[in-house]
């Protein structure tokens, strides 16, 4: 759905993007993360046609952003990290205005507006002035506004920042629903726990380059691999220690009573083989599991390193 190749953008001497490559599959819920100043908003603005790149290509649904900006804009719904509302308009008028900006008017526009306000839980506030809405409601209105022309891609820049937990939960549910309807959703956020809950794919950007990209499952597996194995034995651990020391994938061992923490560099098959060896050696293993990693751990690891370009799947 979205293909970015070699994207570069500078502001004076500052290089916001230095050859960004990124691919978002059709129907994905793509989490776009990175530290402050990594180039997320610049990338989003380029995709939305609000900035022109110095070099590189951006293709949305096969259309190039430079060649066919109108077509690309028609395929994208953009929710920035600010509200952007007209205080002296009512909710329905605000929606009608943006519908007209996409060439929709009359009954078609009104039907679409009502459906979207219902979907975002705003149907009872159509006659409210935008100025009087709460933060969460304004955010929902912005989401409804971005969907007015039924775009294929929805781009959300920090959508849940400043929301209370209830609103965040509701917002995530709406996003999931949209994804189920077949829309491709790109979410830029610092709330990695939120992203790990909803996203199917993830891209981590740092210093204007994509440092890690792929499906969420693959990425979390990768995180887990770097986490230690927690083994619990029923009885003294010495026999188990002997087996573990002789294993080539075991890097470190630490013991506390019957709990053994093992630094293990191996995939799930090698983990299974190690468990088999322990059982075959007659060791009563009553606990064997990888400690679960999370996106925060991975994010910290990646953004701390000097050189890191790891693409789990390309193309």
């Amino acid at each position, binding site marked *: 759905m979205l293909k970015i190749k070699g994207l570069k953008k500078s502001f004076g001497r500052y290089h916001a993007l230095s050859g960004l490559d990124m691919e978002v599959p059709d129907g994905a819920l793509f989490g776009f993360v990175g530290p402050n100043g990594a180039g997320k908003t610049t990338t989003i603005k380029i995709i939305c*046609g609000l900035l022109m790149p110095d070099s590189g290509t951006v293709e949305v649904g096969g259309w190039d952003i*430079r060649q066919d900006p109108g077509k690309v804009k*028609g395929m994208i719904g953009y929710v920035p990290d600010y*509200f952007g509302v*007209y205080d002296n308009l009512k909710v329905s008028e605000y929606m009608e205005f943006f519908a*007209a*900006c*996409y*060439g929709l008017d009359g009954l078609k526009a009104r039907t679409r507006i009502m459906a979207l306000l219902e979907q975002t839980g705003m149907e009872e506030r159509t006659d409210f002035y935008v100025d009087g809405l709460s933060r969460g409601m304004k955010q929902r209105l912005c989401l409804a506004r971005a969907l007015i*022309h039924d775009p294929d891609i929805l781009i959300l820049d920090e959508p849940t920042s400043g929301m209370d937990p209830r609103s965040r939960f509701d917002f995530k549910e709406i996003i999931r629903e949209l994804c189920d309807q077949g829309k491709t959703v790109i979410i830029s956020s610092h709330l990695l726990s939120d992203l790990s809950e909803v996203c199917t794919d993830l891209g981590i950007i740092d210093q204007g380059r994509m440092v890690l990209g792929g499906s969420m499952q693959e990425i979390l597996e990768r995180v887990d691999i770097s986490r230690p194995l927690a083994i619990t034995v029923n009885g003294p651990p010495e026999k188990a220690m002997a087996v573990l020391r002789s294993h080539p994938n075991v890097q470190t061992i630490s013991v506390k009573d019957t709990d053994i923490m093992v630094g293990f560099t191996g995939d799930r098959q090698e983990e299974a083989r190690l468990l088999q060896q322990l059982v075959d050696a007659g060791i009563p293993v009553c606990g064997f599991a990888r400690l679960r990693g999370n996106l925060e751990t991975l994010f910290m690891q990646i953004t701390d390193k000097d050189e890191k370009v790891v693409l789990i799947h390309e193309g």
Partner: protein
Amino acid sequence: MRANPIYKKEVKASSRSVRLSVILIAFNGILAVAALLNMYSVLYRVWTTAEIQYSGFLEMYVLVTAVEFALLLFIMPAIAAGSISGERERQTLDLLLATQTTPRQIIRGKLMASLSNMLLILVASFPVVALVFVYGGITWRDLLLLLCCFAVAALLVAGIGLFCSSLFKRTILAVPASYGGLILLIGGTYAINQFALSISTMRWNSYMNQIGSVASQASSGGFLYLMLFNPAVTFYSIISRETGADVGRGAVSQWFGYHETGFLTEHWVPVSMAVQFLTAVFLMGAAVRFIDPALKRIRKSNNKNRR
């Protein structure tokens, strides 16, 4: 044909704002006071001298239209200069640019909204201006020409306002910049001509002293044509023709010394209106470039190539 969405939205928003009502009341109030004071002075003359001076009613026409023109020049930048910068301040400009509405449509919508507000103000002032018809001396044709002059001046000032609004990110800068641009256009062109005339007069004086002549042909030269950009001069030309103050040649050509009569001086009003209209179009084209991300990029790469 679909109505411009920006224009529709602006009209709806301004109809809810008290600003337009306040401007309407103030505008008509000032005009009415000027007209009534003038009528009172004419009537007072009748009471004291028992003599009716019909030229006094023409003076009222000049006074009312001059006040109207001055208010137009004063109000229009305030309306137009906040239109794009206001969108930036509300953080809605990017949202508009992210839609399928083009930058050209955005500028056109803003221009139409500014002009329709001004048109409303002008139409609302008709009853006061129409007082002159009670006594005669001015025809509908004269009034129509004056309206054309107002329309072109409003377009030019709106162009300056939109240009500054697109150039500056904040309204607090765009508004004074618009007024500055307008002052430069009106006062600046006059000052340049005055300066050129005084230099020329000094040269002619020294030359005439040498040859003992008294007939000076000092003038501001080609700088006179800068006045084509000046809407106040166009207004003055129209008014002076309508009231008979102009003597034969184009009024402006007599201002800054001796100028040859030519096509431009003979057709000063239509030519100056055309020049001002084209200037407004140019300014609005520049405003489009300032907000269009694609054109910004082209401009930047052209600058790089030049370096």
